[in-house]
């Protein structure tokens, strides 16, 4: 469902430097109307700076920013009419829950009765109906998060920004809130820009993900595309726990760690290639593997029991350390090779992803 009122965001050539450091380096980005887009990157990558530019708290050196067709790059934050959820929630401690949620409505001179009604509706939306009279310090972390969310949507902004809103919650609550935020977005349909450093969160929630590093967007794609076909080594490395093998190319033959590679994927047009090996795509194979597999000989270095799965570390012939993750069933663990033993690792041709090796 897309909201008729949701606005697309157009970022063009936005640059922000702090001294010699580029926090944002000529960033251009289109966020579609009603889309849930996540800015994903390590700390210091520039993802938060970009969000602060969208909210109006950071003034870039140059560039253009449009909400719909309006140029807003020089508009002060209080006139931008975007909702924002802060990392630490920034709930006003001297106001009640209802005081906080009603704050943007009071600023907009909404009638008192209507404020009360809209505040209660917003609180119900985040499943906190009847909490209006509570003080902020009486709320748990998860409840604060919901109040912050209610406050940012109560004035029906057409764009919603979120700065790592779940990072302070414990894992179980975080998992549940991810799904809830996703549902809320489907219901309200605001154009949403979400910042996180948590790749799983990004994969779970987003329509599209922009991976940010060094103040640049490294790749902008759907979660599936990003995971299955990363465009560069940074993205491949940042998303998932990949190991990389150097690939030698002679004519049409590609070789990695002594194995001639078969792949059903596109091969990037680059002089140097690397083979991306994700732990869950590698598996232990018997002596007579099928045709569509690449097989590598390896020595087990460590075996870790992780409950729902096992993690087996092994060293390939060329010295590269790779990890293999496998699902656990009764008896699986005891049947696994022990450290020091040799194994054959299989990688399906369909999972054989080659990445351009830059730098």
């Amino acid at each position: 469902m897309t909201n008729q009122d949701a606005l697309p965001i157009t970022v063009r050539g936005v640059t922000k430097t702090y001294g010699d450091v580029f926090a944002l380096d000529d960033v251009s980005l289109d966020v579609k109307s009603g889309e849930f887009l996540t800015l994903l990157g390590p700390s210091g990558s520039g993802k938060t700076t970009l969000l602060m530019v969208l909210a109006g708290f950071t003034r870039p050196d140059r560039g253009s920013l449009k909400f719909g067709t309006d140029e807003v790059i020089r508009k002060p934050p209080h006139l931008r009419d975007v909702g924002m959820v802060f990392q630490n929630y920034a709930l006003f401690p001297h106001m009640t829950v209802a005081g906080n949620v009603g704050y943007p409505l009071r600023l907009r001179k909404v009638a008192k009765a209507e404020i009360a009604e809209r505040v209660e509706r917003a609180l119900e939306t985040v499943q906190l109906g009847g909490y209006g009279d509570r003080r902020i310090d009486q709320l748990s972390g998860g409840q604060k998060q919901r109040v912050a969310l209610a406050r940012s949507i109560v004035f029906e902004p057409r764009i919603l920004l979120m700065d790592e809103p779940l990072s302070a919650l414990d894992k179980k609550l975080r998992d549940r809130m991810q799904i809830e935020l996703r549902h809320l977005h489907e219901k309200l349909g605001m154009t949403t820009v979400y910042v996180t450093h948590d790749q799983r969160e990004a994969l779970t929630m987003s329509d599209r993900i922009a991976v940010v590093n060094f103040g640049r967007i490294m790749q902008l794609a759907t979660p599936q595309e990003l995971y299955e076909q990363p465009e560069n080594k940074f993205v491949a490395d940042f998303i998932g726990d990949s190991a990389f093998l150097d690939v030698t190319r002679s004519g049409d033959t590609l070789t990695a760690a002594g194995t001639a590679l078969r792949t059903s994927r596109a091969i990037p047009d680059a002089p140097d290639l690397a083979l991306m090996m994700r732990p869950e795509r590698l598996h232990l194979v018997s002596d007579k593997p099928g045709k569509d597999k690449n097989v590598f000989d390896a020595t087990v270095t460590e075996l870790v029991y992780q409950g729902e799965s096992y993690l087996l570390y092994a060293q390939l012939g060329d010295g590269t350390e790779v990890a293999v993750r496998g699902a656990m069933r009764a008896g699986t663990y005891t049947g696994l090779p022990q450290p020091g033993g040799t194994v054959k690792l299989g990688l399906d041709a369909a999972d054989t992803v080659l990445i351009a090796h830059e730098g």
Partner: protein
Amino acid sequence: MTATDMNAEGLRRDEQLERLRLFGLASPALLLVLVILVIPVGWLFYVSFIGADGTFSMENYERMLKRKSYARIFRTTFEVSLLTTGLCILIGYPLAYFMSQLPTRWANLCLITVLLPFWTSLLVRTYAWLVLLQKRGLVNDWAISLGLWDEPLKLVHNLNGTLIGMVHIMLPFLILPVYGAMRAIDRDYLKAAANLGASPRRAFWTVFFPLSTPGLFAGALMVFVLSLGFFVTPAVLGGGKVIMVSMKIVSNIELFVNWGAASALGVVLLVLTIGVLWIASRFLNFEQMTGGGHG
């Protein structure tokens, strides 16, 4: 002895012993409080009920009620204290706000300049004002040569001088708690206010100011209570025209050697001060002021 009682007796004894040791450690401090606070104040109360003939009497308090001059003195004391507090807020709050917006390094520098007068003797500072403010003093000379006013103004030996001196001395007591409260305000609150549609002015009045009030109340209360008992500055700069309670106490002792009357004044001032604090505590949250914060 059952398994659930394991060591219960011994652990209970340890607990008692620990409490006893803590009390032992605190006892020198408790003794000190007794010697320098409880006993003198008790003595003060006692003496205030001793009449001129050396027997128990209420005459010291009766005199205060009968003579109009006493009522005037108390009124002056409260007026001067209120004015000092008000002026300190008017000057100190904006200054503290300015400091709280500076980068920490510059703010610390400002803080040192605010605190600098603290390290100079109160008497020296008061006499310095006397020199500056007198009829042919620096302030009048410069103001006249700059054309700010034509005749030398009466800046000292009256209420003006008293207030100038007291505000100068009390200002740090206001600035410090206000500045502390302001520094503790998360900048994200103001960002959130702006994001929700508040202009900088609205954000200040609806978010920043309310969050700074615990510091403001603490500072104002401190200035007011300290002003109530102030002596040196009004005595030197007031020129005998601004008589506060503390000065009456001194004259009772030095001029009339009437310890009973002086003690009674002291008791009334103490009771009034406690009254002010008590009223303040009914309206304000002391826990918040003393840094309990706004968790």
